[in-house]
């Protein structure tokens, strides 16, 4: 069977032939991914203004960054945003997926409807919601008034929600450090949950449908109540899916930009800077205000480190509870 051996050997090819297939993708990946990613790291040590490298500054930009209150407040705002979007989105999408996983008529209809915002562009979504949140003419305030609530400023409200709740309870004083995210940020969070929930529902639904029926049958024969079935069968067997949804929602949430850019302000990031998230801060530093690109690269690197470490920490924390 020498001819077969020769054939097998043929699969070990010379690098040149392989290169022919790899070069088109390779050139693009190297030029527009690898080089930029490496440069982001390098640029953060240089003074770069308006696309021109002016000189090496070492760690100076990082030191500036750690003394920059706007940077820290943008980090805090992003953290509020992530903390607002991720648990709510996870809870609501899991709830919807569990409801849809029963013997439901017209399942396809519900899935279609819930997924609809995901294919809609974020720019359009942001415009529509900005109009819904309009303080005077908006749909939301109208609905609130119909149900006897008070009209609110929504995207124009800089006050923190904890502070607002406290004043709603009649407390005149509230500690400055605990005012919480502004109502404007909450409005942006609501939009993000609305936009992304359909995606998470589809993922959860796929996960739920992967759980074999025998487990449910066994649980039913043993006389488990629905709550017990959920916590002892569904939840552990769904954990890989939950883990994926948690991770991907967190990572996308950290990069929020479009909603902030279109819904808040002017100036963007308002009112009073309470919706200025980290990617918008990066954009503003690098492209808007004088184009301080070295500084923006330092911000980018911190963002990268946060996302990376979050991925790793989350993986370690959650993986021990994930049943594969």
């Amino acid at each position, binding site marked *: 069977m020498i001819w077969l051996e020769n054939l097998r050997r043929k699969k070990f090819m010379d690098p040149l032939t392989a290169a022919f297939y790899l070069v088109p*993708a390779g050139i693009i990946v190297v030029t*527009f991914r*690898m080089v*930029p*990613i490496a440069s982001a790291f390098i640029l953060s040590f240089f003074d770069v203004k308006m696309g021109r490298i002016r000189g090496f500054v070492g760690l100076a930009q990082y030191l500036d960054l750690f003394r920059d209150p706007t940077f820290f407040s943008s980090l805090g705002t992003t953290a509020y945003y992530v903390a607002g979007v991720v648990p709510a989105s996870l809870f609501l999408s899991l709830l919807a997926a569990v*409801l849809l996983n029963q013997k439901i008529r017209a399942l396809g209809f519900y899935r279609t409807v819930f997924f609809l915002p995901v294919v809609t*562009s974020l*720019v*359009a979504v942001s415009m529509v919601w900005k109009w819904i949140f309009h303080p005077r003419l908006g749909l939301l305030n109208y609905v609130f008034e119909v149900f006897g609530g008070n009209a609110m400023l929504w995207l124009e409200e800089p006050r923190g929600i904890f502070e607002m709740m406290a004043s709603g309870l009649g407390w005149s004083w509230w500690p400055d450090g605990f005012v919480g995210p502004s109502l404007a940020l909450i409005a942006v969070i609501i939009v993000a949950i609305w936009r992304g929930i359909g995606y998470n529902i589809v993922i959860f639904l796929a996960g739920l449908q992967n759980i074999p029926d025998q487990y449910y049958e066994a649980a039913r024969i043993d006389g488990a109540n629905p709550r017990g079935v959920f916590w002892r069968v569904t939840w552990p067997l769904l954990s890989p899916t939950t883990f994926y949804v948690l991770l991907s929602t967190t990572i996308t949430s950290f990069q929020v930009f479009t909603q902030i850019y279109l819904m808040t302000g002017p100036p963007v990031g308002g009112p009073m800077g309470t919706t200025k998230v980290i990617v918008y801060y990066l954009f503003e530093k690098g492209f808007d205000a004088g184009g301080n690109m070295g500084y923006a690269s330092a911000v980018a690197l911190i963002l990268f480190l946060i996302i990376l470490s979050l991925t790793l920490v989350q993986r370690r924390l959650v993986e021990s509870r994930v049943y594969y």
Partner: protein
Amino acid sequence: MHGGAAGRGRTGRMEQTATLHDRELNAAYRVRRGVGKAGVYAALAIGVVLMIVPFWWMISTSLKSPLEILEFPPTWIPTGHFAERADGTWEEVYIVSQDKEAGTTDVRSVDGDLERTVTSSAVVDRIRFRFRNYAEAWSQAPFTRYYFNTILITVFVVIGVLVTSSLAAYAFARMKFWGRDNIFLVFLSMMMVPQPVYLVPSYIILVKLGWIDTYQALIVPWFAHIFSIFLLRQHFKTIPDDLYDAAIIDGCSRFAFLWRVMLPLSKAVLVAVVIFTIVGTWNSFLWPLVMTNTPEVRPLQVGLARFSQEQGTSHELMMAAAAFSVAPLIIAYFFAQKQIIQSMATSGLKG
């Protein structure tokens, strides 16, 4: 449930009571199940309303007149006030003021400044759709250009991604060469780096290439899509080696094997790649926002954002623009929802 040691004489009655008992239990259970089901449908109905209302609001607003927007409470269905003219025809009017005692209303024609007073009963509310908002919004910004740009960019990116990904995936899946798995790992690790991180250096590179404000800047960097390479490679690996061997024996070249065998066998994956590439390119925003400054190459999303920032107060025009910007994908979605949902779910693309 019922004690087995019951007296023989009473067994019949016992059974009777037991069945009765069971029947009651069953009925109660069914009611509870029914309530549960009703609760499920109620919860889902609330969800559906919450998902649909913003779309309804977008379209409803886009068909209103500029002054109807300012009315509070707002109308769910676009409604206009109509008054009869002297010659018996009707025209749409705005209500300027109402005099309850005299029973008259001052109205102004929508298309003119002419103000007149009519009896209140002569003013009638009627549903009407102001489709001309769409034409007006379209003409207030170079939307034809934006649309053309987005379609052009999307077509080229899709072709580029298909070509580069199939070739690279073929190499990674079928060929053996030095460093293959390491190169693949490097590719995969770069997929994890979020776009904002390399945005600034990419901008500088495009400046150096002289590509800012060109189509290339919006197309070429997206010619290769690492996740598509990954997806295709995984699929190519499932196609058995024997097929490859047989084809080579028959004198098939490597490229012909890819073209004639591998790709036709991978139609489903290729469709998925095409779909998420289209959706991703159509909706991408941050990259084109940074890389373009002029309307000539600006894609639809950036143009729409610019329009929204410049308009500010004409909500009916903004909603019309938003509606015609999302229309193509939503229409496509209604025709191919299954494929689109599947494709986007595999890609992890959230737009």
